């Protein structure tokens, strides 16, 4: 009888049943899974330590539990270095076989770029061929790109926006703002005087870049980024109190929504008419004038607005978790 019991305990079925019940592992029997308690305690100590001096913790190395993991890390690092080196090597080897630099006969200087250059002015009305290309020939990519910006700002909102729903959160918000003012000069005179001169200049320059996107280098994205940095400078000099008078989350939402909606509708119209071989009926105007090149100017303005607002929103969210 006892012998039978022994057999049963050794049998695969018994072990399977035990494993089904989660009482043992078939493959790593006897392996240490949990971290020993004193190790955990040590780590906790370190954790508190790190929390108290957050800045220093990059100096001390973190002790890993178990030899296996350490060897695994070492192995992983060596393999990664090898992988990176081999990628660099392979790509360099490739570069040696690529067409030579600056040669007009390279495969990428083909009929595609030739048509953009030769007929771009007539077909899009934009003097700056790059702008004409990204906002008319390859507009779908550019629309996708605005959506990337939009969704990134949504993700940052999810992560960093602090909702003042209950008292606890409000306390946290006040704390955040206190922290926020901790490291910066309050009402610094030099900064404010400089900002008084610089902010209008930066804003005018940004608007110029946006409006002249189809005539000179620049366009919605660069101009919007310049505008956004101007706003950020203003915010830094005068604090949130001043900016909140004209720029709140509501304004931000409405601006982005209307700009993106206009972009979406305008481009949908142009895609739809184009694909169904209809005339779009939008006058291209006289090349070289400000009011020319059809939809490109309004689209640039929309993109500029979206980018400026998003950059400012990123900054405000990073600073205090709200706008």
């Amino acid at each position, binding site marked *: 009888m006892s012998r039978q019991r022994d057999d049963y305990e050794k049998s695969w079925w018994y072990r399977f049943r035990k494993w089904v019940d989660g009482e043992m592992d078939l493959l790593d029997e006897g392996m240490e899974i*949990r971290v020993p308690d004193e190790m*955990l305690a040590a*780590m906790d100590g370190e*954790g508190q330590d*790190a929390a108290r001096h*957050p800045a220093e*913790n*990059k100096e001390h190395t*973190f002790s*890993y539990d178990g030899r296996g993991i350490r060897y695994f*890390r070492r192995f992983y690092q060596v393999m*990664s*270095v090898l992988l*990176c*080196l081999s*990628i*660099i090597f392979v*790509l*360099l080897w490739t*570069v*040696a*076989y*690529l067409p*030579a*630099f*600056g*040669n*007009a006969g*390279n495969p*990428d*200087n083909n009929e*595609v*770029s030739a048509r*953009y*250059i*030769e*007929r*771009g*002015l007539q077909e899009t009305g934009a*003097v*700056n*061929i*790059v702008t004409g*290309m*990204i906002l008319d020939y390859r507009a779908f*990519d550019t629309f*996708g*790109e605005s959506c*990337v910006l939009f969704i*990134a*700002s949504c*993700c*940052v909102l999810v*992560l*960093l926006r602090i909702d003042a729903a209950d008292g606890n959160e409000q306390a946290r918000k006040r704390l955040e703002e206190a922290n926020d003012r901790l490291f910066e000069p309050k009402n610094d005179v030099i900064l404010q005087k400089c900002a008084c001169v610089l902010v209008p200049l930066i804003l005018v320059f940004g608007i110029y870049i946006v409006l002249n996107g189809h005539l*000179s280098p620049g366009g919605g*994205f660069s101009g919007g980024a310049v505008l956004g940095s101007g706003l950020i400078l203003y915010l830094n000099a005068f604090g949130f109190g001043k900016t909140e008078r004209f720029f709140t989350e509501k304004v931000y939402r409405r601006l982005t929504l209307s700009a993106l909606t206009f972009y979406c509708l305008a481009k949908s119209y142009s895609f739809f008419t184009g694909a169904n071989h209809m005339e779009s009926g939008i006058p291209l105007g006289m*090349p070289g004038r400000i009011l020319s090149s059809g939809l490109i100017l309004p689209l640039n303005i929309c993109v500029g607005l979206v980018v400026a607002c998003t950059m400012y929103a990123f900054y405000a*969210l*990073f600073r205090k978790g709200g706008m």
Partner: protein
Amino acid sequence: MDTPLFVNMEETVSIILFGIGFTMLMLHRNLIKKILGMNIMDTAVYLFLAVKGYINGRMVPIVTNQIQDASAYINPVPSGLVLTGIVVSVSTTALMLALTIRLYERYGSLDLDEILMRAKEEERT
């Protein structure tokens, strides 16, 4: 001086930068360094593309003096692609930095390995 790597010197440099960025993104344990590496990697690819558009002795692709000859301007396509790409990389950078802030608030560390260890411990308790 005529080796292909030297003729394509700009490409060579951009590949080296790509490698540096890739290695940083993969190996550095500090999250901020990882994100910097990601940016370096992206700009390296953009440099590579921009180099591809350049043609010796030609001008910026902005129509001047009514000249509309393909042999007068450089290739505008890579510039357009890079413009798109730069905005994409800014968006990812902002997202990853926001994640970093949240992780730091929670675990008080920038070291990715340490963060993962802490997260695992938190799960256990």
